[in-house]
């Protein structure tokens, strides 16, 4: 047992990688089992259930009007929420990493808030603000403006839960990069906007893309907060995750899983692009650190 692969003598403490081969195999097997059981199997089940009655049946339930409207609503909601979050995330991390001001750490805490608040609460907040019994409800109703139980409410709830994604990706990187390059640009006479566009943005583009990706995946997949503000009107205010629940509860299991597999596909694509970016991103980081 004590024979070592190296010939440096047996006094050296046992390295992390020279465990008994059996222990290693068992550990790896356990890990693999977990991954198969908790990640691969559910994913396979989703697709298997969706295709139970053939590809045509699955396709039919995706092009059915209520499903199409759910897909459309999801795309619109993410299409509005994600760019707004990018704008916010960029400006917040720019402000936090490049400038000093009072209340900075408070701002960072605030940005993280949606991570620690339950999505149900995030949704209820909007009901309390814009609902008929809330602050602005009666005013909005008088002016025929719909916020909750309509697209704006769904976008707001989506934005709230995806708030930290972009900023959280950018703040550590931008802090790490420091202000030297920006200061150099400014001292050479570049305007603030030009500095941002020509210096800051190129430095963080991969991290930004990565944040957008995560943000989008969450925006399209969000259930809890959106469920509270949706009103569940079929063909109108159901997003994809809500539509899946409706179908499941309608005993339409094939249809439910067909739409679910669309979301699963989105997850897989996100994962693939993310891995690709991570690879790129690592290079970028290494390049930055060489300076």
């Amino acid at each position, binding site marked *: 047992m004590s024979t070592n692969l190296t010939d440096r003598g047996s006094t050296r403490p046992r390295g992390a990688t020279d465990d008994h081969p059996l222990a290693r195999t068992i550990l790896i097997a356990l890990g693999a089992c977990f991954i198969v059981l908790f990640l691969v199997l559910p994913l396979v089940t989703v697709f298997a259930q969706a295709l139970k009655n053939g590809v045509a049946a699955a396709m039919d339930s995706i092009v059915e009007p209520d499903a*199409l409207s759910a897909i459309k609503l999801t795309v619109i909601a993410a299409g509005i929420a994600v760019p707004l979050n990018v704008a916010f995330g960029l400006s917040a991390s720019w402000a936090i990493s490049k400038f000093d001001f009072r209340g900075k750490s408070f701002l960072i805490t605030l940005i993280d808030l949606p991570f620690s608040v339950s999505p149900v609460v995030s949704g209820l907040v909007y009901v309390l603000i814009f*609902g008929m019994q809330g602050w602005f409800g009666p005013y909005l*109703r008088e002016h025929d403006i719909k916020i909750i*139980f309509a697209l704006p409410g769904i976008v707001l709830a989506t934005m709230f839960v995806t708030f930290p994604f972009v900023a959280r990706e950018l703040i550590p990187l931008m802090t790490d990069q420091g202000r030297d390059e920006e200061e150099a640009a400014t001292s050479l006479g570049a305007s603030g906007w030009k500095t941002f566009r020509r210096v800051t943005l190129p430095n963080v583009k991969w991290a930004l893309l990565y944040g957008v990706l995560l943000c989008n995946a969450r925006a399209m997949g969000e259930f809890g907060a959106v469920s509270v503000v949706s009103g569940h009107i079929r063909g109108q205010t159901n997003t994809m995750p809500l539509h899946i629940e409706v179908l499941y*509860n309608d*005993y339409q299991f094939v249809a439910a899983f067909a739409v679910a597999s669309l979301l699963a596909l989105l997850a897989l694509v996100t994962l693939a692009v993310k891995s690709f970016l991570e690879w790129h991103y690592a290079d970028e980081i290494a390049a930055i650190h060489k300076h």
Partner: protein
Amino acid sequence: MRNTSRYLLAAALLLSTGATCAADISLLNVSYDPTRELYKAVNSAFAAQWKAKTGENVTINMSHGGSGKQARAVIDGLDADVVTLALAYDIDSISQIGKLMPGDWQKRLPNKSTPYTSTIVFVVRKGNPWKIHDWSDLIKPGIQIVVPNPKTSGGARWAYLAAWAYAEKKPGGSAEKAKAFIAELYKHVPVLDTGARGSTTTFAERGIGDVLISWENEAYLALDEMGRDKIDIVYPSVSILAEPPVAVVDKNVDRHKSRKVADAYLQFLYSKEGQELEARNHYRPRDPQILAAHPEFKKLPLYDVDDLFGGWQKAQKTHFADGGVFDQIYKPGGK
């Protein structure tokens, strides 16, 4: 190949025109959980009738969920033209808190504004392995009961009151004993879903629990969907007369200028055609002839909430409000 292009075309068309195409007028019916199939049938029949009568295309949009939750959404501003909920208390709330309709809404349509009724029955696994025949059998040691949360689900509140009525009215029964019985019964409930449909899928699809306390209509639907070889319906010795009411939401129809079609829609539920559709979807129609033509609706003694509990306002306050009897007896997780 041709199929694919057809799908793409359909997708493109729908994405460009949206859901608003071709409807002259639309109604939003905010309903409770188990009525999905019922209103699917009713809506298309009514739309056809309305088109024939007036030439207008009417689209009826649906929203389903636990009855209490749906009432809350309407109060919070969900733009319902009509509400078709599980019990009168929930529409009372819309009238009182939301001020969206007068307090006497229930007098505006026949039969206390309930075009159809239902009752509470048991659904058991095929062959009834636990030999559950009446309410008292539910609290045998080891039995797991599936029933939704009375706080959010109308069906669950009817189920609770049915169990209470049984325990209070049986020989030697009393309100005290009923409370003890209910407390014992909910100890057998491992988890409370928010709506009736959630409980049905928990029981039938996910195979959890030994008995489901359910709407009669929901039980028959589960029988249709899950197959008669998997589950049986058991009628207890007594149950409750469940009256799910319907109402036009005055403030909303006035704003939408949709009162005429909303009124006609609810009237349709009382018509022969509507009553027949309700019976076929396992709701007990009010029309005695149509009811008689459907022998599957077993006759059993049914208690009335007004007689036994003094109406829904009182029942809600005593049993289901915060700090009420249900809060006193229910500890999450059973045991």
